[in-house]
């Protein structure tokens, strides 16, 4: 027979083992979630010195189908390409945040912007930007128009914009809007509202 003290000890050991197991699962889950949060909560202002600049964003709103004007004061890099990238990346950050008026997929990012001498702009997005995008004519066109009109508002002289995904041309954003041709900024803009 096992005496009562030993029985109590065995029960306590089993409870401790069970508790540690649950804690280990919790730690594993936290370790998985933290990198995801890092992606979502990326910094909106680059580590650049200098005075803050007023930036205009044309923010898509699914509710009314319009682009809404918003301004923000940001410290931006001097390099035009990096500056344009930070502006568009900030815009995409708005869309991936909670309560976004035009949600984009988790982890969507603008990784590069190249401003060419012929007034063309090449915007390179990551795979999550396109793969996680909702499918539909209006939602896709508003994303492209929002990027294009924000770029035009803050980068004078840009006439056309083309979006690449992971450095490659893609047929459509999510089954509808054409990404093989340039988006001409001199043509009729998407309807906007200044507020």
């Amino acid at each position, binding site marked *: 027979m096992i005496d009562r003290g030993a029985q109590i000890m065995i029960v306590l050991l089993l409870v401790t083992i069970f508790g540690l197991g649950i804690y280990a699962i919790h730690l594993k889950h936290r370790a998985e979630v933290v990198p995801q949060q890092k992606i979502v909560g990326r910094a909106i202002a680059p580590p650049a010195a200098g005075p803050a600049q007023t930036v205009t964003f044309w923010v898509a709103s699914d509710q009314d189908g319009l682009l809404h004007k918003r301004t923000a004061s940001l410290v931006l890099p001097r390099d035009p390409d990096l500056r344009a990238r930070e502006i568009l990346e900030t815009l995409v950050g708005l869309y991936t945040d909670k309560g976004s008026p035009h949600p984009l997929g988790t982890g969507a990012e603008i990784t590069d912007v190249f401003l060419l001498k012929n007034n063309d702009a090449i915007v390179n997005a990551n795979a999550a930007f396109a793969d996680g995008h909702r499918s*539909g*004519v209006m939602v896709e066109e508003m994303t492209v128009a929002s990027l294009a009109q924000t770029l035009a508002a803050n980068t004078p002289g840009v006439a056309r914009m083309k979006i690449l995904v992971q450095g490659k041309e893609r047929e459509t954003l999510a089954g509808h809007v054409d990404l093989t041709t340039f988006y001409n900024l001199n043509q009729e803009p998407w309807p906007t509202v200044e507020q």
Partner: protein
Amino acid sequence: MRWTSRQSPGAGRQSPGAGRQLPVAGRQSLLARGGRAAIVIALIVTVIAAPAADEKHLTVYNASGRYNVLVVERGGREYVALSDLLQPLGAASAKRDGDKFRLRFRPPDGNEQELQLTAGKTKGKAGRSDITLPAPFRMENGAPFVPLSSIAELLTELGVRDIEFHPQARRLLVGNVAVRYQTELQRGAEPKLVFHFSGAVDPTIATEAGKLRMMFNRAPVVGSAPQRFDDKLITGEAFSEANGESEITVSGSGPLMATFSADARTITISAPPVMATTPPPAQAPAAAPPPPSSTPTPVAAPPAPQQGTPQPARPRFMVAIDAAHGGSETGAMLQGQVAEKDLTLAFARRMQAEFDKQGISSFLVRDGDVALSADQRASAANTARATLFLTVHVGSEGRGIRVYTARVAPPPADRPLFLPWATAQSWFLDGSRSAAGSIAAEFSKRQMMVAAYSALLPPLNSIAEPAVAIEISDSSTQNLSAPAYQQAVGSAVAAGVAAVRSSLEGAR
């Protein structure tokens, strides 16, 4: 409803080849290139049109009009896609769990019924009754296929009433829509055979020695036993039907012609009038009613003329209706269950029926679950020389109708002989905006939410005629699947196009 599994969209886009602006070159070289280009274009057109000529299809007639369902052969038996068959007949939703397939279907005037089938099995359940198919049920790329010979039984079990199925001719009539006829032979010096139809008909007429053929592509004409007449001129009439169409052949000892009553319900067959100065021709072309809509084909374009059969002239005003997506390219998955491609086809078919009511000829660029590239769609519409191109999209973001025109630069002052493929629409933007405005105004008039935009949406930029995209959006797939809503949208689109018809014709 999820009819097929989702695959990566956008496959199969062809590089644009037709319509590019040619550089200035030596005449001989240009001619040689032109000749080669003509051969290439002819080959492309032949390849595009070829499947339509050989394919089998089931033609379904219902109160809203007519549609085709592709018939495929599997294991020596004919099958049809259940999704294509049911979409226009009521509200359907389906679930797939491995090999098991469960369908809920509600006809417009009936209760919801459930059908359960298993891939590879013939046994299934419809409501509480057991059913046995004549051949195993099949699932291909997520789409359910049933034996053609079983569709009448299945539709009955699903609550569809008044079905008349002609399996040999692959014709299915749903809801007492059959147009029947009686004949009356009027003897005398100028004998006449009068056909009294129970509904309006618009056959294509062809004549050959001793015969006059009336081919019914659109009206669900159902015939009776052949008749022989004891008459010198008109000796008999016979009804036949095959591959979704029907035909009445009138036999005679001389040339015959057909004349139509104003309400298109009576056709009179008689000898053609004899001209005083010339003898009657051996083969006289018969009078024909206004040209009907062209038969829908999977890859666009009106039907190719058959040898020896006079075809009606190309309609002056013709709308190409393009149901976006198709095949492995599902489009958006609405509420994660319903593929956009299925709803675009349902809306396109409704629009075609409503165009019929407005007396406007139209054809479906895609009339089945087939994948077409943007360039194929543009080629089909341009080759058919449609007056207006309408592409239909369906979404679940927001609510209401969005009407789009192409986002393309205005054209240069001088119009080239060959329009650039990527910007052909530039020269037709005024017509496109006019049509979009008229359609939007019609929706607005009917208290339906509507907004107009421009978009970089293939294939609009390559369409060499006025082109409009329509996106119908609602957060509820039930609303989008409702036949009444689809008809309301189709009716508004047809009325909007009818209102701008004369100006589009004039611009042409």
